[in-house]
């Protein structure tokens, strides 16, 4: 019985020691990983800040204005002026375009007229 107790104690001590040893190395490995990740985060942050700075630099109003002036033909952008504002009431309701021959042709003034105008072949195959 005594021997058995001794053996048990020994086994517990050895397994405890093994566990502590393993945990220790696992902890160290985790810490190394954390510090690696943190370095990576710091590097990413730095590149983000560089990109942000570059974005701000490329978006500076002076440059945008020059680009708008250079590409006036394509963009047609002008500085926003007070006369660009308007009340909704001032915008005219879009006029329905009526073609001259539409009135002459009684078929196209029917309900299905708009479709008929676009594809008469389908209406009368």
């Amino acid at each position, binding site marked *: 019985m005594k021997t058995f107790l001794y053996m048990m104690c020994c086994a517990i001590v050895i397994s405890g020691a093994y566990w502590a040893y393993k945990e220790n190395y696992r902890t160290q490995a985790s810490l190394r990983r954390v510090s690696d990740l943190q370095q990576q985060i710091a590097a990413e942050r730095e590149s983000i800040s560089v990109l*942000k700075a570059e974005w701000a630099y490329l978006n500076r109003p002076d440059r945008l204005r020059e680009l708008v002036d250079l590409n006036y033909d394509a963009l*047609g952008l002008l500085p926003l002026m007070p006369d660009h504002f308007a009340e909704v009431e001032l915008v005219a309701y879009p006029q329905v375009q009526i073609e001259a021959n539409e009135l002459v042709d009684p078929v196209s003034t029917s309900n299905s007229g708009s479709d008929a105008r676009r594809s008469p072949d389908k209406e009368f195959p």
Partner: protein
Amino acid sequence: MRTPLRPLARVLDAREKGENPDVIEAEERAIRNVKVQMRMRRRAESRLLVLGIFFFASFMVVGARMASLAASVPTEPVSTASIPQIANQRADIIDRNGEILATNLATTALYAQPPLMVDPKAAAEGLAQIFPDLDLAKLSEDFSGKRKFLWIKKKISPEQQQLVHDLGEPGLLFGPREMRLYPNGKLAAHILGGASFGKEGVNAAEVIGIAGVERYFDETLRDPARDGEPLQLSIDMTAQSAMRDVLAGGVKLMSAKGAGAILMDIHTGEILSMASLPDFDPNNRPRVLTEGDQSDSPLFNRASQGVYELGSTFKIFQAGINLEKGLVNENTMIDTKGPLKWGKFKIRDFHDYGKQLSVTDVIVKSSNIGTARMALAAGAGAQQEMLEKLGFFDAVPLELNEARQTRPLLPKRWSDISTMTISYGHGIAATPLHLATAYATMGNGGYKVKPTIIKQKGVQPDREQVISERTSQKLVKMLRAVVTRGTASFGEVKGYEVAGKTGSADKPKPGGGYYDKKVISTFASVFPASNPKYVLVVTLDEPSIVAHGEERRTAGWTAVPVSAEIVSRLMPILGLRPNVASAGNLQYTAAGN
């Protein structure tokens, strides 16, 4: 093999000889005892030895640990994940919409350690080739002399770093640096100020603000507890850019020496844009002038540092005093027969405005005589009290050191003649920022505002009321009349109901007296008149323009058109819609193609 205590052979032998066989037993017993003793002794000795070795080993371990602890550098035990690194050394500065005005950029500093150099001459030549601004002779001298360490460049680009690297000189070394970058260049240069390096080491350098908000908020920007939270200004970057653009156009057109403009929220005192020309690039801040007039330097902020006699723009304050005291109403007739003689002084008007004008017309036509008479009626005390409340006795408490150090110039002795001239803005000099602050009070219902460059969450609580809301409304009406039928007719912007007052003052000569043809022309305005939201002050330094065959310098021809252009460009940017009812038949123009 075990020997018996009484061996039969010996016992028989002893019996034959007639000896006592017990002796044999005793002998055997003695031998046995000795053996047992010997065995016990050996066991004890071995135990002692084991124990001794154990103790020796333990003490050796303890000793070795003590020695290693004593000899090694102390380090903190790493038990938890360390705190994440602080992203930036210095917080960013952003505008009211979150656009970046100032940020940091990682860069490299170049330094040399001549004792490590292999070929100092080639190194000097190589550096002079990469950096044309370096002096070859001086570099060679430094590298071959006794110096052990020297800085060569504080900031170099990655390309330059590669070129230096390619020289292959072990004595040329790089240190990491964080530099301040202002991506928008000259935009808001006077507000941002600039930064430079403080204490420098090989591995890092301290970035310190040297002017503007960078200096005023230096501690805040560097505070690690803020965790990189950016500093948000009240400036609107787009508005600031448009203002600078328009102002630069105005300066060119009017061939002015410089200009300053401030746009302020009339209720909160937030400065939405503040420009001063000429300006500079804060990335490459010019040196402070060592001689001559500091106001000629591009570093000089005409809007917050330029102390000028602001002329007729002050007349509205006198009208405010007299209205507030109940001495007049807006239609009371004031004697404007000129010239007004007071002792040996004579006060004249630009034109003769006849015998009398109503208070409104005194402002509209900008009559010096009328205002001077109103000042005499109200007295010096009332004038001083009002100007003090409006902030003309102190520096403006703006978050810029330059503004805080700029005190207005007041007369040494506040005589009657001072009272009269001050009523139309002569004999008192203040900055355009003072004027904007005072106009904000005049236009916002009479509440005192504290100008600020930091974004606010709303109107400052418990504002002091300087004039009544009724008076304020009347004053805005008068200012509106100045634009609709007075000296500032070019200031009208359809839909924005600009209300303002012009001011043109001759520039004082350094030795005393005034220049004949050099003026400071100012237009201070509040708008929209029906519900004022913004204050705009535009000041041009020595403008002149030829119009209708005549050279014009007065504010009506110079500052006012520039101001109108600023209003029409900035208000759409800030999202203030034109008031269609007041614009009359506003035409809709389709934007875009």
